[in-house]
């Protein structure tokens, strides 16, 4: 099977996964107590007002009928309207998903930029003091909660030495690149320890392989041996680790989004749950499901690019 049809197949498989997620989420959000109409109107509202708003939103219809309507609209690519913002869920999500995607992509790049050199350095100096340091220091990063790292970065690089803006998403590509550096770094610092440990371990195994000895004996410069032969092979397992963690971070970037005032989708999700904004919760969950599947798919594709031995099978 070639790569393209594999990707097509995997994308098709996404449909039942996403459907399953919609069913679960639809019924779960309706099962939890709490009423969006009451939440929106507040305590001053009369029972009639609440009932009227529920009727307007179609919340007084049987649950099965509501689900049917939801699916019917979904089939036409319509996720319904947000109860609170009174705008189409799809456009709301479209606006809010980019900061999160940006954050994750930025963090991934930063994490790789930090991890690969450090892990390589550590692996080539096994058990030396540099190795010990590289293994120990990132563990602090793992031990500290992201929101705290975020606040420290803001105080250091936003206020003390005002190099970066304190929160915000920025405008246009360069603006995003500049504004998102601190949040990107915060998430990257969470990923780095895991990546370094995983990459270092597999590098150590790879560096002992026969083909590395062969390469060295051919007189290839050491940096070429490392980069072309060792790192490329060692990084495959790290890509898997990275993929799993990024998938976990989708929706888990909420805290970082809040600290850095990013209009991301994690924040939208939590606010919508508190407001019982059912259509948004459903829509965002669907998008999360799709994103997670996509990240896994990208991980697999990257695998095959790095290692031609990886075959696509049914």
């Amino acid at each position, binding site marked *: 099977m070639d790569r393209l049809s594999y990707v097509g197949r995997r994308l098709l498989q996404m449909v039942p996964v996403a459907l399953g997620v919609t069913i679960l989420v639809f019924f779960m959000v309706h099962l*939890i*107590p*709490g*009423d*969006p109409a*009451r*939440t*929106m*109107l*507040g*305590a*001053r*509202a*009369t029972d*009639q*007002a*609440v009932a*009227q*708003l529920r009727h307007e939103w179609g919340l007084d219809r049987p649950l099965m009928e509501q689900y049917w309507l939801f699916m019917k609209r979904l089939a036409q690519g319509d996720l319904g309207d947000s109860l*609170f*913002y*009174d*705008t189409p869920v799809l456009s*709301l999500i479209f*606006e*809010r998903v980019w900061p999160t995607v940006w954050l994750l992509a930025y963090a991934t790049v930063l994490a790789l930029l930090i991890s690969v050199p450090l892990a390589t350095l550590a692996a080539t100096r096994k058990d030396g003091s540099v190795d010990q340091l590289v293994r120990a220091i990132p563990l602090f990063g793992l031990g500290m909660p992201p*929101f705290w790292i975020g*606040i420290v970065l*803001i*105080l250091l690089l*936003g*206020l003390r030495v*005002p190099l970066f*803006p*304190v*929160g*915000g*998403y920025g405008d246009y590509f360069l603006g995003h690149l500049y504004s998102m550096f601190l949040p990107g770094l915060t998430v990257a610092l969470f990923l780095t320890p895991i990546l370094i440990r995983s990459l270092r371990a597999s590098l150590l195994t790879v560096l002992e392989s026969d083909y590395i000895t062969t390469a060295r004996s051919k007189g290839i410069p050491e940096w070429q041996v490392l980069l072309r032969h060792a790192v490329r092979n060692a990084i495959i397992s790290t890509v898997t680790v990275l993929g799993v963690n990024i998938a976990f971070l989708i929706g888990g970037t909420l805290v970082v989004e*809040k*600290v*850095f*005032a990013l*209009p*991301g989708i994690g*924040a*939208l999700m939590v*606010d919508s749950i*508190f*407001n*019982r904004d059912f259509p948004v919760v459903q829509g965002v969950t669907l998008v999360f499901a799709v994103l997670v599947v996509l990240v896994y798919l990208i991980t697999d594709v990257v695998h095959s690019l790095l290692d031609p031995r990886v075959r696509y099978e049914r």
Partner: protein
Amino acid sequence: MTTRENEEMPSTEASEAVHGSFVHDRFGRREFLRRGAVLGAAVGLSGPALVSLVSCGPSGSESSGKGGNLIIARTAESEGMDKTMVFDNESIWIFLQMYETLYTVAPDGKKVLPYLAESYELSKDKKEYTFHLRKGVTFHNGKEMTSEDVKFSIDEARNTKGGWEFIDAAIDSVEAPDPTTVIIKTKYKWAPLLADIACFNNGIIPKDYAGKSKEEFYKAPIGTGPFKWDHWDKGKEVKLVRYPDYWQKGKPSLNSATWTLVPDDSTRSVQVQGGQADVDEFPPFSSIQKLKNTPGVVMKLFPSTRTDYMVLNHRVKPLDDVHVSRAISYAVDRKALIESVLFGYGEPANSFMPPQVRYYDPDAPGLQFDPDKARQEMSRSSVPDGFNIEMTVEAGNDTQTSTAQIIQQQLKQIGIDVKLQQLDPSVAQTNVQEFKYEIGFSYWTMDIADPDELVSFAVDPTSGSHSFFTDYKNEDVIKWTHEAQEEFDDSKRAELYSKIQSQAAEDAFMVFLYYSDFTYLYSNKVKGFKVYPTGNYHLEEVTLEA
């Protein structure tokens, strides 16, 4: 007909209004915000003062202003710009920069002042108000405001269902006999009318939504205010820009105002310190001391109408026993609460009415901490040996959780064993409103410059809110509430409201906890920023130094 001049209303009119709204704490910082409301307020300029300003003021709005874009970092997103339907402060405080009312709340929150109307007359039977509109007021689309627009706006406000129409319940009809005159007839004698008219839901918008559908209109609304609509990136920012033909010549000074969403307390304050934002809405009480000593910024506490309560469900035994509720009120050490929860920045409440509302009685005998009296009341009650009770707390609301834990300890001293029940905020609110609770928490901030809205909500079970959802009924208190609504004599009204506050305090139907301020941090480049007790601010008064 009695003629009323432009100046502030004679006190006999009793027409100061400020609405209140009742809100259950939500999560974290939102607790301040949900439904309090706001009113356009008067800038401190009454009619004649305005005239003089117009005549000798600068020729163009540019010349007086230094310009600048004010950035307000706020805690939560707005819900919408529909003035008749939206209940959250984060929306109201923004749309009040665009919509203005005939009368507006004065800076002290206790009076109303002429605004889009210059004066009014009240008929002898006290059921017909004739308003004379200010001339030369234009909407953001350049069209002049007329009485037809006023009629449309107030009719829209009172005919909406499920919103703020209860504010206008006393209005019988609105007429527009000529372009600068509006006549409002009330169904019965109704003292709080001017206060009601000053409520934001009665803000003036163009007739027939300037030819748009209602939905379209409120997506990019227009009014007569100092700022006009620019854009709203949901979850990120709302931006308004200066309206150059604003009727108060020379204002506003700012080129624009942008409200950015920065939910994290620490990030907001650092943004102001670092110059990325100009105003930080609601720094937490815990940070006040430190921010007061931070150079380059101003940490300010503005008197608010926020009053926090612990509500007791009278449908649950033994909370219907007055000795039990009095015992609970006596047992709560408010000073200790203020010290630990508000870091000292608050005052114990002696009434269900806040000091910033007219007819607040500083001598109202709200029960204060007295362990001996608490035990005496318990011994006279139906449950002298104590009882078990459940307290509903909103999960994730740290302030409420600490408050509940402290009160739990204090009630234990008089034999009341409190179990805390943490619930998702939406569920906690719904449960209280449906009487599925035993003890809960709530608070109020005023919407209008008259106590009537709060008083009806708090002690008149017929008003639909069942006395703050406690089901407290005292026939005398209810009767006085209705009398006060029809009483135009100021001193008589004051007397009635004192009696109401006094009796409600004696009945201790809920525990009046404390009054607290609005906390704001802003850059020292910001001048003229003032938050009214109703929570709103007038950005046309604000300048930003370069």
